[in-house]
Each structure stands twice: as structure tokens, then as C-alpha cells.
């Protein structure tokens, strides 16, 4: 028994000192509930007691007035007789009467049962009366009569006392029951919350330790715990996705940087082992340097791409006019177009967006570069920049070989170069960079058939007009 009690106390202390919000909440609710109950009980008790007391006083007052009237009509003796009669055979068991002479001598009434000091009062008095079945509270009125004697009219407040005792007893039991019930509910709530959080806590800890595939069980109840679980699971999915992405990219980088590095190494080794004459040696060195430059360029592009992908569209970006930027890019590429016998036709309108000028220039430059690289000689490359009131569109179309529909999503991946273009210059990062820049500006990019050729549609959000 002692062991169980001490275990209970320990449990309670643990609950009270618990860091868990749920336990504290449960305790607070139970406490509040009990306080409200006590307040209500006390109020009710007081109100009913008041009513009892008022009734008692009213009865006594009427009774007393009755007797005083009798005294006036039939004098001292009549009153004494009446009181003696009433005392001998009472209508009301609780009625108490006394007639006290001017010298303090008891002339009639319950001499034996009244305490002596009750006779000294005046007006309303209250005293305890010792009876066979215990102490009874008596409320009485002391009335001075014309001849100097005193009349005491009173009632034993047995009913009120019984009521009070009943209320007290009932209250105690109810209080105990409520406290027990509150505690139980609190304990169950705390346990339930702790249990629900326990699995979340456990799973997140294990995922943090590396078990990335684990997810918190969802019960589809859509309560706040379920919603929390769903949120966390979505976050874990995203983390896994990112990690998979990193793994994928790392594999690609390893492959695509290793190939030229191997080529470079072989070239250097050949120069060392084979006897090449001076002229060829210089040519080989130049080629090796060019290869290194290409590698460095690829590496820079890769770093840049990673950084841009990590950025988020920010309202902090400055507002900038896209048209002059696009025209600058067109001007930069115009000589390349005319050398390739291609007409570069640009139609632009002024439009404003928030963004990074260097990145956007890179976007336009890469798209123009691609279009001019793959366009057939003698054809036209068109650039349209317009604002449809909802968004800004940059559309660049060429009449080259185009990209088969199946490859149109794949070409955005890092280092993906379609077979037929493998031989040509380029890192395979151009379109990846374009897409990253578009996304970072809150935009999107789609590839379409220009029949024949490729049409690139870039949609960018326009700056809010203020």
C-alpha cells in the first residue's frame, strides 16, 4: 500500500514538474474545473442558507408579535399561562419560549434547556442549546415588555443545520469524485498526447540519425497531430528528394568531369612518353590548356548553377527593365547570326520585372546562343518579348533540327546533351542554367515545336505596379 502510494506521489510530482505541455495543460484544466465547482457550490450554499435564515426570522417575528399582542390583551399572567401551555404541549417542536421577570427570574418557558447568558441579550440573539441529540443552534428574539419583563421567542434551526450538514457531506464526496475524475482525465489526456508525440519524436530522431526512409504514421483523422505528422512527412519527402538530387548530380559531375580529365591526363602522358617534335609539342600544350579552360568553365557554370538553384525569388530584387537587356543580348549575338547566314529578328516591348540583371542576361544569351547554334543556315531566328498584362513572355524560335518531344524535359538536366550534338561545343549546362534562372525569378520555361525547329517559351512574373 505504501509502495503504491509513494509511486502515485512520484507520478504526481513527475506530472507537476513535467516539461510536457500536455500534462501541464491537463493539470491546469483540472484545477480550473475544481475552482469553478467550489465557487458554484459556495454560492449556492450561501444563497440557500440566507433563504432559510430569512424564513426563520420571519416566523419568529410573527410569533413574537402574536405573543406581545396577547400580553397587551390579557396581561402578564395571560402571557405566562400561554407560554407555559405552549412549552408543555408545543405545536412546533422547534419553538422556544421564555418569559423573564424584571429581576431576571424565569417566569415561564424552557428554563432547563437554555443557557443562562441567552437571557441577557436584547433584540436578535443566537445561542447553542444542548439537547439529547446534540447541540442545536437557536435563533431568537428578545422583546422587552411594558412591565420590565422580557419575552424570548425563538426557533431551533434544526432544518437549516440538517441542510448544511447534508450540503457539506455531499460537497465533500462530489469534490473528491471531481478531483479524482479531473485527475484521471488529465492523466489520460497527458498520456494520449505524450503517446502521439512520442512516435513523432522517435521517428524524427531516427531520421536525423540517418534512417531517411522512415515516416510518421498518419491516421487521416485530420486533427492537429495528424496534420503535424503530414507536414513533417512532406518535409522528410522533400529532404529525401533533395538528397537523391544531390546524389544524382554528383554521379553526373563525377562522370562528366572525369571524362575530360582522363583525356587531359592521357594527352599529357603521351607528350611525356612519345617523342614529339617541338612544333607538335606546342600544339599539344595548347590543346591541353584549352581542355583545362573548358573544364574550368564547366566547373564555374556548375557552381553558378548550384548557387542560383539555391536562391529563392526575392521581393528584394530590384525592379529592372527587361527590354534594353534583351536588346543588348540581341546586339551581342547579331554578328554571330549574320556570320551563320541567319536573320535574327527581335520584336520587343517595354516590360518591368524584379530580378537579377546578370542572370537574366545569361538566360537570354544562352537561349540565343542555342538558337543560333542549331538554326539552319539561311533561316530566321525570332525573338518576341511581350507582356500580356498577366506575365512577361520571352519566346525564341529557330528553324533547326528541333528537339524530339520525348527529350524536351530531359534536356534541362545537367550535362544532358542529345547524341547528335555531342561533338559540338558546350558544357551541357546551358539549359539547366536557363531553367534555374527562370525558376529563381518565379517563372517557368517550356519547349515547343516550331515546325520545324524549336520554340522556347519563358514566362516570367511581371513586377507589381505600385
Amino acid at each position, binding site marked *: 500500500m505504501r509502495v503504491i502510494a509513494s509511486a502515485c506521489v512520484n507520478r504526481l510530482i513527475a506530472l507537476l514538474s513535467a516539461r510536457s505541455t500536455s500534462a501541464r495543460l491537463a493539470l491546469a484544466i483540472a484545477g480550473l474545473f475544481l475552482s469553478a465547482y467550489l465557487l458554484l457550490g459556495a454560492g449556492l450554499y450561501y444563497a440557500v442558507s440566507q433563504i432559510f435564515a430569512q424564513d426563520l426570522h420571519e416566523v419568529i417575528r410573527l410569533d413574537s408579535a402574536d405573543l406581545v399582542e396577547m400580553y397587551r390583551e390579557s396581561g402578564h399572567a395571560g402571557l405566562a399561562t400561554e407560554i407555559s401551555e405552549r412549552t408543555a404541549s408545543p405545536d412546533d417542536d422547534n419553538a422556544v419560549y421564555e418569559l423573564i421577570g424584571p429581576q431576571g427570574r424565569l417566569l415561564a418557558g424552557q428554563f432547563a434547556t437554555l443557557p443562562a447568558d441567552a437571557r441577557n441579550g436584547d433584540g436578535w440573539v443566537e445561542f447553542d442549546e444542548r439537547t439529547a441529540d446534540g447541540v442545536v443552534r437557536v435563533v431568537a428574539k428578545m422583546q422587552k415588555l411594558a412591565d420590565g419583563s422580557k419575552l424570548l421567542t425563538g426557533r431551533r434551526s434544526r432544518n437549516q443545520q440538517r441542510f448544511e450538514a447534508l450540503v457539506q457531506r455531499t460537497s465533500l464526496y462530489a469534490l473528491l469524485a471531481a478531483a479524482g475524475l479531473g485527475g484521471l482525465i488529465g492523466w489520460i489526456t497527458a498520456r494520449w498526447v505524450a503517446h502521439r508525440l512520442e512516435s513523432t519524436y522517435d521517428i524524427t530522431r531516427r531520421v536525423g540519425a540517418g534512417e531517411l526512409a522512415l515516416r510518421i504514421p498518419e491516421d487521416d483523422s485530420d486533427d492537429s497531430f495528424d496534420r503535424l505528422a503530414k507536414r513533417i512527412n512532406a518535409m522528410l519527402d522533400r529532404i529525401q528528394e533533395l538528397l537523391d538530387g544531390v546524389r544524382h548530380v554528383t554521379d553526373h559531375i563525377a562522370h562528366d568531369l572525369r571524362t575530360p580529365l582522363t583525356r587531359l591526363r592521357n594527352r599529357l602522358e603521351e607528350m611525356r612518353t612519345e617523342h614529339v617534335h617541338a612544333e607538335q609539342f606546342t600544339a599539344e600544350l595548347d590543346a591541353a590548356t584549352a581542355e583545362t579552360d573548358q573544364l574550368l568553365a564547366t566547373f*564555374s557554370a556548375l557552381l553558378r548553377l548550384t548557387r542560383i538553384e539555391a536562391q529563392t525569388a526575392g521581393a528584394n530584387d530590384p525592379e529592372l527593365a527587361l527590354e534594353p537587356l534583351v536588346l543588348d543580348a540581341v546586339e551581342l549575338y547579331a*554578328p554571330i547570326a549574320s556570320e551563320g547566314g541567319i536573320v535574327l529578328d527581335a520584336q520587343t516591348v517595354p516590360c518591368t520585372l524584379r530580378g537579377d540583371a546578370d*542572370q537574366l542576361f*545569361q538566360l537570354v544569351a544562352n537561349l540565343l*546562343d542555342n538558337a543560333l547554334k542549331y538554326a539552319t543556315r539561311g533561316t530566321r531566328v525570332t525573338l518576341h518579348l511581350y507582356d500580356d498584362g498577366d506575365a512577361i513572355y520571352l519566346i525564341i524560335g529557330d528553324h533547326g533540327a528541333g528537339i524530339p518531344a520525348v527529350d524536351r524535359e530531359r534536356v534541362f538536366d545537367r550535362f544532358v546533351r542529345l547524341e547528335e550534338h555531342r561533338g559540338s561545343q558546350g558544357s551541357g549546362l*546551358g539549359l539547366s542554367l536557363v531553367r534555374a534562372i527562370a525558376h529563381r525569378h518565379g517563372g517557368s520555361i517550356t519547349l515547343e515545336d516550331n515546325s520545324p525547329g524549336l520554340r522556347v517559351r519563358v514566362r516570367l512574373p511581371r513586377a507589381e505596379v505600385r
Partner: protein
Amino acid sequence: MRILIVEDDPHTATFIAKGLTEDGHTVDRADNGRDGLFLATTETYDAIILDRMLPVVDGLTVLRTLRGAGNAVPVLVLTALGDVDHRVEGLRAGADDYLVKPFAYAELSARIDSLLRRRQAPSAETTELRVGDLELNLLTREAKRAGRSIELQPREFRLLEYLMRQAERVVTRTMLLEAVWDYHFDPQTNVIDVHISRLRQKIDRHHPKPLLHTVRGAGYRLGVRE
């Protein structure tokens, strides 16, 4: 010229120091920010090459301290952080130029030359540039070679002006893009080459001695030297 290199990676520092020494400069080295700051304030240098991420005191703090003390020595900041934000931050701290790692030595060399030149001959109130028999009037925006007028597009004019201001120095394609087109971006193909060859057509055609030279593995040089 006396140049201070503040770079914590010994490989990079040795590589830069070797190149600059071969170019005829005198080089001092520091491998952390505190020593770099000490040397920069106690000695006199014509230029400082400052790595951005340094042990003890970082590069930008060194730079701000120098500028705060009124030291106007040209500073080229080297960094692995190539974002526009980082670049802007570097330039605000008082950098004269900003070069992102990895870089080719030719790029660094050309930029250092440009910084040193800027210091020697501040672009003050020059109204006419002259290289050999090539003249460029900045007021009338007229170009002449051997007295004969050359038609230039506005961009070609800026390109030629930049090349002439950097006469006899190597300028890289990146430098041209930044100075003439004013965008920091990475051209996929050598789009600059086409512009240069067009300019070359205009200034060197019909002339036995070409002025606009291609420097292998580096960029271009405008000058009378072969």
C-alpha cells in the same frame, strides 16, 4: 611594381607569385589576414591581391580597415564566392576588381595590369586616345586610322575605346564583357571573338601592320608591338 599577395592556399599563392615575378613584379606574401593587414599598412604597394576567405582576419575586414585608414592602393579580391551579391559586397568594401576562383593566370595578370595602369594614368580628362596611327576622339566620337575615318557602331566604339585605354596590355574576354557590355555572365561560345574580328576588319584591313592582336590562351591586345 610591388605587389602584395594575401592568400592562405600556398599552391595558389606560389602560382600567382611565380607568374607576377615572371611579369617583372616584386612580390610579398602573407598567408593570413592579420599579417596581410600589417604588411599592407607598414609597406607601400602598387597593388594588393586579397583572398576573400582568410584565417584570423577575413579579406573584406582587411579591405575595410585599409580603406577606413585612407589607403587607396588598388585591391583585387579573389574569391570562391561568385554571386552578384558577393561581388557587390566586395566592391562596396572598397575592392577595385573582383575575380572568381578558379581563374586562369592570364585573367589575373591582365586584371592586375589594368589596375596598375589605372593608377598610373587616371583616365582624367582625356579627349583623344592614340595608339600608333590609330586615333579615337572621345568628343566627336570619331575614329581614324592613318588619317582615314572609320565607321563604328556605338558598341564597337566602346570596345575600341576600352582596348585603347588598355593599350599594350592583355585584356581577357571576361574583362571586355564586363567593361563594354556591363554584364557579368558566362558566354557559352566565344561571342566576343566575333565582335573582335569585326572590329579588326574595320581597323586593320588595308594596313600592313595590324594593331589588334590575339593572345593565345588569354585574350586580346591592342598595340604597336608585334
